[in-house]
């Protein structure tokens, strides 16, 4: 099975490039290409993780975030992108503002690609650890070595083809997991009632959250949010959700991410290009059932003792397990339970469940348990969860040989292309947008080519650092949104003002963006999520505010950065004079770009009409899971 995936992936690399083959492709294909850029292994892992950690509110990433943003992109921004000559974010910023804004954005983008590949690397290393029992560090370095070879060999010539293929592999590889999981918990309603048990006592399954949740905290999308931050596992209110996630993070992601937008450019005409995000929105709307429900199933299974399931604990090395097994054996239960529990916990290097350790020690003393049994008992006694492990644990639980191969191939292939894509993007941005533009202009092609190779190695090493940083989080979606909060949130303010207000000046945009990113850093330095110690995860200067979860911290950080960038850009623009004339800004600013008239196309194909229909369906989904 793995071989087939590999052979076909190799075959695909030789096929013609999607973008040049374009302008004749049906809209459904460009639509799929559009979401394929986004649905990868990381999304699958992260959304399942969030589904377990935060419940069905995670679906807001789709129903409040992605769908409205995609509709906005189709109706308002696409005409403008398709019409303008800009083909990348830095290019647009240079045309609209000046070099400074472009350079700043390039630096921010380069940092983002490093984090993106690091986050994937961490998730993949944890996956290999859980799957093959490899040591986490070894797995991480092996992954990075493979990615390095892949990128240096010049893989990824036809990214879009492989992504569409991977999209189908992920959807078709994981749909049976959802089906079997739901069947195992006893159907949707049984799952919901099990999740009510979770909500009444989240600490019982080591979900670090408050205790005053209503029973529907995991199963209703809006009611727990309306009740306030103390009443839902994400710890957010309606404002943070709608403004922070829905507006800033999601619109920022979908409207300024050219990797995604680019795919719509391949459509055959303007109408098809505008309809591309709308076609993509249809499956996107139902993704929560594929990617979030597995997480909810996992949380539900944990409360059903006869299923023998737990959300996987964090990575613990075999050496620590061995030490803990020895500690269990030597623990003198008669002396002091607390001392025994503490010695086992210290040996393991993790928080442990005192009750379970006590009974494990007692059982070991009473009957000769084998080392493997003790280790299994220890595994079940770790009082922490690593939510990233949810999806793999379900795949292993439900997929027999055969189907397992399909699901794992889909995951591995998607991780590989995700990491390689980000490292390649880092390499390109650094070599051409920064190095060639500012440090060493006018050298030979060979010089830049070799620089690119060196930069690839540097990029991989930096990614490894980012991976270790990411390993401090138990849910990769938490850290992804943090990175977007630093990079995309302020950038979206710059775009919005630049596109819709011709008065925005280059100096205003530059200082605003700079201030926006700076205020993200400041916000991060002064706040922290509950349960974390001040350090790399925030609050390293001083803790002024504590958020109930990492995700809440991210949403507020993004809102803060957006508002800071927006205000600064606005005020500084008013204080400085314009350097570009209306003529220069034609095609770059909304009010100076000719409008599109939709009268000549059938009503059902008009983006505005389709958009409204989709929005209504989306609202209905929100109401069903209210």
């Amino acid at each position: 099975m793995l071989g087939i995936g590999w052979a076909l992936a190799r075959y695909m690399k030789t096929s013609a490039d999607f973008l040049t083959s374009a302008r004749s492709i049906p809209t459904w294909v460009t639509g799929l290409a559009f979401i394929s850029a986004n649905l990868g292994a990381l999304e699958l892992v992260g959304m399942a993780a969030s589904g377990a950690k935060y419940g069905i509110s995670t679906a807001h990433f789709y129903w409040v975030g992605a769908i409205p943003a995609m509709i906005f992109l189709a109706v308002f921004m696409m005409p403008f992108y398709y019409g303008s000559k800009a083909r990348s974010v830095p290019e647009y910023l240079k045309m609209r503002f000046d070099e400074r804004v472009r350079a700043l954005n390039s630096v921010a983008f380069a940092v983002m690609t490093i984090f993106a590949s690091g986050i994937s690397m961490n998730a993949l290393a944890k996956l290999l650890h859980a799957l093959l029992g490899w040591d986490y560090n070894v797995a991480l370095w092996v992954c990075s070595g493979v990615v390095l070879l892949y990128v240096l060999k010049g893989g990824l010539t036809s990214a879009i083809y492989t992504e569409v293929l991977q999209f189908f592999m992920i959807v078709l590889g994981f749909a049976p997991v959802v089906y079997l999981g739901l069947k195992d918990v006893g159907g949707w309603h049984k799952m919901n009632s099990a999740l009510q048990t979770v909500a009444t006592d989240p600490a019982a399954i080591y979900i670090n959250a408050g205790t005053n949740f209503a029973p529907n905290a995991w199963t209703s999308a809006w009611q727990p949010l309306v009740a306030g931050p103390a009443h839902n596992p994400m710890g957010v209110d309606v404002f943070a959700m709608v403004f922070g996630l829905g507006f800033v993070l999601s619109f920022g992601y979908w409207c300024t991410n050219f990797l995604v937008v680019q795919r719509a450019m391949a459509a055959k005409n303007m109408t098809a290009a505008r309809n591309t995000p709308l076609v993509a929105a249809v499956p996107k709307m139902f993704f929560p059932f594929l990617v979030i429900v597995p997480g909810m199933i996992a949380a539900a299974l944990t409360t059903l003792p006869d299923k023998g399931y737990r959300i996987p604990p964090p990575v613990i090395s075999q050496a620590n397990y061995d030490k803990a097994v020895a500690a269990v054996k030597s623990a003198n239960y008669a002396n002091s339970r607390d001392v025994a529990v503490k010695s086992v916990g210290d040996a393991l290097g993790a928080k442990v469940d005192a009750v379970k350790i006590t009974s494990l020690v007692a059982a070991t003393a009473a009957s000769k348990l084998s080392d493997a049994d003790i280790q299994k008992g220890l595994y079940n006694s770790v009082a922490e969860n690593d939510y990233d492990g949810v999806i793999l644990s379900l795949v292993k639980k439900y997929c027999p040989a055969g189907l397992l191969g399909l699901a794992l191939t889909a995951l591995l292939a998607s991780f590989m292309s995700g990491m390689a894509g980000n490292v390649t993007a880092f390499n390109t941005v650094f070599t051409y947008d920064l190095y060639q533009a500012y440090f060493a202009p006018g050298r030979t092609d060979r010089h830049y080519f070799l620089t690119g190779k060196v930069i690839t190695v540097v990029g991989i090493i930096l990614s490894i650092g980012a991976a270790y940083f990411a390993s401090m989080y138990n849910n990769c979606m938490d850290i992804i949104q943090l990175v977007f909060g630093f990079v995309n949130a302020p950038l979206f303010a710059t775009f919005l003002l630049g596109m819709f207000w011709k008065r925005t000046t280059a100096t205003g945009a530059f200082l605003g963006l700079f201030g926006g990113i700076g205020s993200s850093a400041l916000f991060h330095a002064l706040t922290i999520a509950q349960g974390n110690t001040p350090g790399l995860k925030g609050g390293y200067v001083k803790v002024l505010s504590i958020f109930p979860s990492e995700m809440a911290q991210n949403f507020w950080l993004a809102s803060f950065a957006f508002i800071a960038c927006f205000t600064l850009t606005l005020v500084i623009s008013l204080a400085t004079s314009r350097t570009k004339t209306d003529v220069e800004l034609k095609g770059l600013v909304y009010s100076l770009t000719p409008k599109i008239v939709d009268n000549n196309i059938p009503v059902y194909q008009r983006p505005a009409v389709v958009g409204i229909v989709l929005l209504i369906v989306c609202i209905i989904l929100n109401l069903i899971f209210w």
Partner: protein
Amino acid sequence: MGLDIRWPIGLMFTLIGALLAVFGLTKGSESMSLGININLKWGVVLLAFGLFMLIGAFKGGKNPPSA
């Protein structure tokens, strides 16, 4: 012109679906999950999907199979 993406999708899933279904038929005992022969069932679904894509690509008329 480029390759119609339905060709590779169709070929791949026809192949994977057929393999999975055959695996499910011949190794029934190793294919069970919750009492369902999931390899066989899902193999048939994938096979149908792959064929559907191939038919679409064939009718679309771009890049005949010799490509």
